[in-house]
């Protein structure tokens, strides 16, 4: 396995999380499929797809952490890569509907039929093939990230300027995808999918498989991300984050390093989007909304930036909270969510995982200090500088 190969460089925490993810990926679908609904350990299908959705968000947050936590690029447009991956998957799923659409047109999706489109736009060709669609899931976001990053990093756009133009990018895409003339279904987006690879998308078995795939991909991407950050390249990456000019003066091509990370991260976000779409059953331009991208940043911050594990926990926790609150306190849940963001920034500036790690290390340091009877300034160690 690839994971086996990558395992060598990892610390124990990552390995533990990898195993947990794989275990979840096996156990939850198994419990859903094999146990009877009466069994207390049975996971109902809706809970499984909900959890699957959280895992997609977790993957997106992980992708963001790679660029933000380790490379210092605060992208406010990662939702765009996520949505593009989702659209690629959605287009595949639309083509799979075939003649089962409401108008029975064998080629054209329904929304094209009733808007009087006569033939399939060129960019829809090929999406009837699964492999091509899956290729596009990583190629399209990757390409956009490459082009965008190529210009931005070469011109040394950074800090808040970079954040704002990533926001402009996702906002422009939002407006573009809203346009019906674009041929992506406009505001309604792509929906009413039937099956994936021949399996009905509504069957419990398919849902279980999708869930397992999500957990697996999350584990895989975590392994890759961890591999990157713990390699020699990763050290340079952190160097770029903390003192870009120095790294440049040392002779590294900072823009290449940034570009590579940005593209990898965008591809991961694309995969997250592709896994998201069949599980929630819709992709529409709303996913490009600047607010969504900001939320991803918040999940990452809540969980702990620059920890890889933190964003996963943050994404799952915040979204779980959102699901519970919107159901339990529909009128006032925004107070709770808004309050949470304020509280986390004020009281847990390192995020959940970051704080725990910090405490742990501080305790170790204290112990070491007591042992060695010399002080260590634990404060400067973990927290990344801006």
């Amino acid at each position, binding site marked *: 396995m690839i994971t086996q190969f990558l395992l060598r460089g990892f610390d124990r925490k990552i390995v533990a999380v990898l195993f947990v993810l794989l275990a979840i990926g096996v156990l939850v679908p198994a419990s859903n499929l094999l146990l009877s609904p009466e069994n207390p350990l049975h996971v109902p299908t809706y809970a499984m797809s909900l959890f699957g959705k959280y895992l997609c968000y977790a993957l997106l947050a992980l992708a963001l952490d790679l660029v933000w936590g380790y490379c210092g690029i*605060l992208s406010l447009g990662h939702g765009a890569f996520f949505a593009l991956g989702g659209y690629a998957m959605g287009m595949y799923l639309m083509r799979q509907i075939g003649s089962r659409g409401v108008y029975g047109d064998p080629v054209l999706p329904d929304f094209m039929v009733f808007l009087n489109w006569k033939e399939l736009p060129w960019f829809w060709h090929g999406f009837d093939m699964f492999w091509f669609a899956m290729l596009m899931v990583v190629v399209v976001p990757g390409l956009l990230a490459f082009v*965008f990053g190529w*210009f*931005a990093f*070469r*011109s*040394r*756009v*950074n800090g*808040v*300027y970079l*954040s*704002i*133009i990533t*926001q*402009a*990018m996702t*906002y*422009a895409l939002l*407006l*573009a995808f*809203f*346009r019906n003339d674009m041929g992506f279904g406009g505001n309604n987006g792509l929906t009413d999918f039937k099956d994936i690879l021949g399996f009905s998308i509504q069957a419990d078995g398919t849902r279980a498989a999708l869930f397992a795939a999500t957990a697996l991909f999350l584990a895989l991407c975590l392994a890759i991300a961890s591999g990157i950050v713990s390699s020699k390249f990763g050290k340079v990456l952190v160097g770029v984050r903390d003192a870009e000019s120095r790294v440049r003066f040392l002779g590294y091509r900072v823009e290449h390093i940034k570009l590579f990370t940005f593209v990898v991260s965008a591809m991961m976000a694309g995969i997250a989007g592709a896994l998201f779409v069949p599980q929630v059953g819709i992709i529409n331009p709303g996913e490009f909304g*600047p*607010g969504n991208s*900001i939320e991803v*940043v*918040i999940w990452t*911050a809540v969980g702990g930036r620059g920890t890889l594990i933190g964003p996963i926990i943050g994404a799952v926790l915040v979204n779980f909270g959102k699901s519970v609150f919107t159901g339990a306190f529909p*009128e*006032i849940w*925004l*107070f709770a*969510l*808004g*309050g*949470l*963001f*304020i509280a*986390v*920034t*004020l009281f847990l*500036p390192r995020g959940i995982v970051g704080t725990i790690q910090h405490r742990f290390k501080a305790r170790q340091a204290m112990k070491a200090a007591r042992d060695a009877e010399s002080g260590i300034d634990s404060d400067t160690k973990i927290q990344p500088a*801006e």
Partner: protein
Amino acid sequence: MTTFRNAAAAFAFLLSLLFSGLAAAQSDPAALFDQLGKANFAETEKIIAELGKTGDVKLVPAFEAFSAGDLYLRKEDGKVFVARGTGATLQLFNPATGEATGEAAKGALTKLKVNNTVRRAINNALGGLTLLSPDKAVRFAAAQAVLKSPSADNLALLEAALEKETDSGVRTIMEEAKAVSLLSSDRPVDQKKLAIETIKKIGGRDAIGILRSAEASVDASLKPDIDKAIAGIEDTLKLWDAAQNVWYGLSLGSVLLLAAIGLAITFGVMGVINMAHGEMVMIGAYSTFIVQEFIRQNAPELFDWSLAIALPVAFVVTGAVGLVLERSVIRFLYGRPLETLLATWGVSLVLQQAVRSLFGPTNREVGNPSWMSGSFQLGGLAITWNRLWIILFSIVVFLALLALLKRSAFGLQMRAVTQNRRMASSMGIKTPWVDAFTFALGSGIAGLAGVALSQIDNVSPNLGQSYIIDSFMVVVFGGVGNLWGTLVGALSLGIVNKFLEPYVGAVLGKILVLVLIILFIQKRPRGLFALKGRAVE
């Protein structure tokens, strides 16, 4: 629906119209008014024209009442009255003479329905009737009404009125109205030729409209004249179009400037990525709403002053909110700009929901004072008053802020703190308070923007969300930390947007502007007016 009578009745009515011809009963206004009670919209239109032809000035109040929906049918005898008053019983007046004729319970009356067709007919008739009014303003309005709805019927009246008219302003309009009416009459060709020239001089879209509609009916020999006149007008319009686009762009730019200028302080000067900025704008707009509500209930005569009163209120309210926000949240986050993004995003969610809980999720009505309504013509430019005031207001705010920063002690301290906090502190400046008041200032200005935006946009909990992204774009495009950059950035984005819009449409125009910003940042990574020196890093 009581007003929709069946077809048979309508037919019978038309027959009666036909047979009665010009009999006395027909031109008897009282009888005509009573017919209104049963007429449908098309018939009503005819009756009104008939009434208008009587030339009886006494009918004017009845027409005005009809237009305002004060004409009623008494159910018991089918007679029509002007009814006025509030409460359960209304005062009745004879529509033909204006005499009071007792009163009736509201339940015993049915309101006569008015629609646009009827309203147009009333305006026409009123125009004809009031052309000879002793009041200059009324004559002016009448001439304009006739100008708007050309009809050969008015020609004789117009000529009579022109003979007596002494005021040159009214005369001009009447001449134009005469030309317009003449075109659709059976007057000789040479008179029409002159009329075309007069209409050409009026200019504008309306003139083209009049000429186009006349084109179908006039003598073929006049066609070339009309075409030439239209072409001439269109040429002038083309020139004005460019100016009009600049105007639209300036006006959009001034809105962007207002929305962004507060952010230029909190974000540009202080480095706080203030996602709650839009909500400050929203609070400013809601302050305006509260002030107006208060005025409506307690001192309606002050309504035209409501915005002037709302300005300081909004400034103080949002400034106070900003101050509290700075003291309770932001001050712990200095030096960590990206974390201010998260916290202020949380704040914006809380503020939105708070406003939603307090004022409800729906739009609130903020009225336009009379001096902000309507428009006027400046050459070929149509300029709306509210846009003009907003442009002026944004410039005033900009200059005031600039003066505050450059000329006041507080501005000096503020600049000192942003440039070198430690040094400023050691010079005895209370940096925490300077921070707090700087943030309050930025928020207060957002509140002022809210007052202005309440005049052109929804006052709803979502108001701020629609401006926050644009505001950031403006500040970044102009160059963080530079007020002039914000000014130039806002105006140029506005103008570019408005020049693109007619060609590519509103949606694509906006996308192109965003792409343009992205490309521009590649070229100048620190915006239009980049700060230089050590403060940059």
